[in-house]
């Protein structure tokens, strides 16, 4: 299946009165792939995601989603299939109640209210926030807002999921739930984050950005164990790989997180 494919061809972008933030980036993500997008602050992760969702238009190059080139004309059609989770959850909650916020997307696509209620319940259930359904959105805690903002995207049942820092504000339990959600989402997804352990657990492939350029694009295992390259790009080894000298050995242990972590510690002892 190629309809959830994402392809970038020599994409560059520059903010008005700014310098070039994305510099000649090309990659191809096939259906069902999950890709981690990492890089230091200001590397251009959020900008790249905004380009993919059509919020920004590249100054150069083409973006192709499915078989459709992203242009002003196809924007509406493409956006229907993309779920974009903003870096700041406050931007995503603008209605009165949690229910209305989660229902906002589906309602715009003319789905009838009975079906919408089902979708809202399902989305909130998945993020473990069903008990917040009738609360006021602006009275939630930071983490609750994050979970609800993820639910607002899930309720649209998108084909492609773009997430900007999804694990910020979350407590360990909620973070674990997020990882499970991401792993159960069978379509294409791109996750921009500093949480390298999250990338380790959810993404097979990783793209590393530095100053708007791709420095590395390949197997997550290879990049997240490359201490030197990570540190050059303002990052460091994932937390669960930091305790031992030979990170690549640890990788398999980390895959089953809780066990891996305990084994890692006992191994060290």
């Amino acid at each position, binding site marked *: 299946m190629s309809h959830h494919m994402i392809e970038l061809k020599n994409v560059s972008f520059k903010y008005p009165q700014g310098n070039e933030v994305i510099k000649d980036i090309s990659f191809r993500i096939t259906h069902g792939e999950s890709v981690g997008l990492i890089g230091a602050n200001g590397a251009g992760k959020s900008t790249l995601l905004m380009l993919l969702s059509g919020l920004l238009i590249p100054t150069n190059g083409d973006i192709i989603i499915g078989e459709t080139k992203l242009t002003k004309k196809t924007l509406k059609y493409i956006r229907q299939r993309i779920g*974009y989770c903003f870096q700041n959850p406050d931007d995503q909650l*603008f*209605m009165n109640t949690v229910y*209305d916020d989660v229902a*906002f997307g589906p309602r715009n696509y003319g789905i009838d209210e009975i079906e919408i209620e089902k979708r809202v319940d399902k989305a909130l259930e998945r993020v473990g926030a069903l008990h917040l359904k009738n609360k006021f959105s602006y009275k939630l805690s930071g983490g609750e807002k994050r979970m609800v903002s993820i639910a607002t995207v899930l309720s*649209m049942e998108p084909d492609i999921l773009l997430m900007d820092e999804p694990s910020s504000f979350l407590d360990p339990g909620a973070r674990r739930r997020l990882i499970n959600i991401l792993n159960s989402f069978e379509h294409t997804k791109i996750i921009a984050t500093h949480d390298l352990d999250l990338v380790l657990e959810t993404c097979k492939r990783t793209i590393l950005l530095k100053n708007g350029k791709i420095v590395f694009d390949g197997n997550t295992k290879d990049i997240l164990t490359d201490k030197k390259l990570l540190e050059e790009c303002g990052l460091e080894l994932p937390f669960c790989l930091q305790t031992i000298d030979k990170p690549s050995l640890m990788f398999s242990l980390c895959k089953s997180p809780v066990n891996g972590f305990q084994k890692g510690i006992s191994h060290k002892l």
Partner: protein
Amino acid sequence: MSKLNYSLRQIRFLDECSEGKSLIHRINPIVKILVTLIYIICVVSLEGYEVNRLIPFFLYPVIIISLSDIPIAPLLKRTVISLPFILGIGFLNLLIERNLHGLLIFLSLLIKSILTVLSSLLLIATTGMDNIAKGLLALKVPKIFVLQLMMTYKYILIFTEELITSVNAYELRSSEGGISLKFAGNILGRFFLRVYDRAKNIYNSMILRGFNGEFNIGKKISFANKDIIFLILWIIYFVLIMFFDVVKFFELILGVVT
């Protein structure tokens, strides 16, 4: 700082009220918009000096408040906030017309503004902005106006929150209370930039979720018997007190009885 934080909690008062489940809340929004509109037109179109004829109009807010469980004190506070402007105008008139007639006009202006503001606040508090938007669209008000109204309303709330964040951040790091004039411009500038960003982001997240200017708030607007009765009863009452001097009528009856 605490005072500002307090007002932050207050700012959503109307929204919170609008989630109520009382009889008035359940009335069709179109009906409530119409009744409020007719009410305001009636109040405004009474002659300037007919103060006593305004008295029966107080019945409307009193009944709505008592049937909808909306706390009175915060509602009145919001009404009073709008008064200084009106008072200013009335006062100017009083300077020109320094007699009983001028005083009556001043009084009626005051009462009229209280009644109209109060009734609009009650409409929002018992209906909610989203429902009002839906009602206005159903009444064939052009989409662009409704959109303007909704966005303005939503943004005002968000802007206030941003302002409070900016001021809090400043005050936590400044030794003296209040904002010194030297930094006020700085804070204001930053505030506008932040507000601009927030507004843009929120609009973006709306269009990413398929927003196209249509307000789909789910609940279908349906007419039940109680809506029709509500509408008809109030229209009859308004017409009655518009065209008959009910107060005088009672005075006459009282006169006959005593």
